[in-house]
């Protein structure tokens, strides 16, 4: 029994170490640098009927060289203020970032009246890559 527990402990430790090593030393890449947010068709009608529809988070995290292009798409049938801009039906807006900084835009789609985009530099150290991957993993559960 004790031997079994030791084995489990060893395996867990090995998994954690292996995960950290691979997460820290594997370069971060992305198939697309686009971070896409879409207003689906019917959003305006849903809002008018009293539904609370959140499409665009008030904080967006981007990473230089990995995912550093914000893409907003309005697929609804009416013009919409989306992030920093007014977008016509069927229109998209593609905003690249090339400097790590915190950007604040006025945005009437949010209760706070503003939207913040945090652009982080490309994780260049093992710890930074582990942190980046951890944050990505956590964000998938939010």
């Amino acid at each position, binding site marked *: 029994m004790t031997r079994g527990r030791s*084995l489990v402990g060893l*395996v867990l430790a*090995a*998994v954690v170490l*292996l*995960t950290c090593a*691979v*997460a820290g030393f*594997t*370069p*971060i*890449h*992305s*198939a*697309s*640098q*686009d971070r896409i947010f879409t207003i689906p068709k019917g959003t305006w009608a849903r809002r008018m009927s009293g539904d609370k529809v959140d499409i665009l988070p008030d904080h967006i995290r981007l990473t230089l*060289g*990995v995912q550093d*292009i*914000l893409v907003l798409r309005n697929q609804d049938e009416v*013009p919409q*203020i989306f992030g*920093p*801009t*007014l*977008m*016509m039906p*069927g*229109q*998209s*807006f*593609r*905003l*690249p970032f*090339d400097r790590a*900084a915190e*950007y604040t*835009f*006025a945005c*009437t789609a949010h209760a706070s009246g503003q939207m913040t985009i945090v652009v982080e530099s490309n994780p260049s150290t093992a710890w930074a890559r582990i942190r*980046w*991957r*951890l944050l*990505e*993993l956590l964000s*998938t559960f939010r």
Partner: protein
Amino acid sequence: MRHAAVRWATALLASSWVVSLVVAATGAGATTTGSGAHPPVLKAGAFDPPRQAPEFDLRGSNGGELNISQYRGKVVLLAFGFTSCTAVCPTTLNTFAVARRKLAAAAADVQVVYITVDPERDDVARLKKYLGSFDPTFVGGTGTEQQLAAVRKDYGVSAQKQVLGDSYTYAHSSFTYLIDRNGRIRALMPYGHSPDDYVHDVTLLLKE
């Protein structure tokens, strides 16, 4: 002994599977570092498809009417603000002035249009004096509160008056519209970009 070896092998296989999953899910699933099918060309945020810049009819600081359509054939940098602005506007207008100087002869095909959000204080004379301190070619626009509110609505620009003691200020959108020679809104440059970024984008639009 044999059982232990099997258990170790299973555990290691499971570990590799977990590690692969975690790492693949967080940025190692592909090896492309490019920007996908649509590489960014402009430094500013680009619209697709571009829409026609909404027309307006305001009083211009050059003494005549100010319409967006009168600048067809030129690339227009359109910004909104107010002359008492101490933070955003002077920086943006100075950026435009530097960019125009860097563009040299090509600057003849670039027009800066600055529409006030503060018609109470920004009359034609004040706009002319203020803009002239940056670049004498800049043109300002003013009108009634209703006219200006309609222009802001058409362009998706926000401006909120904020009272400060016996004075007031405005919190307003700080980005700049880039309008091409055909009068289409092509892009939106967020506040804080350098003159070089404007030179880059304007040059691309002028070449079309």
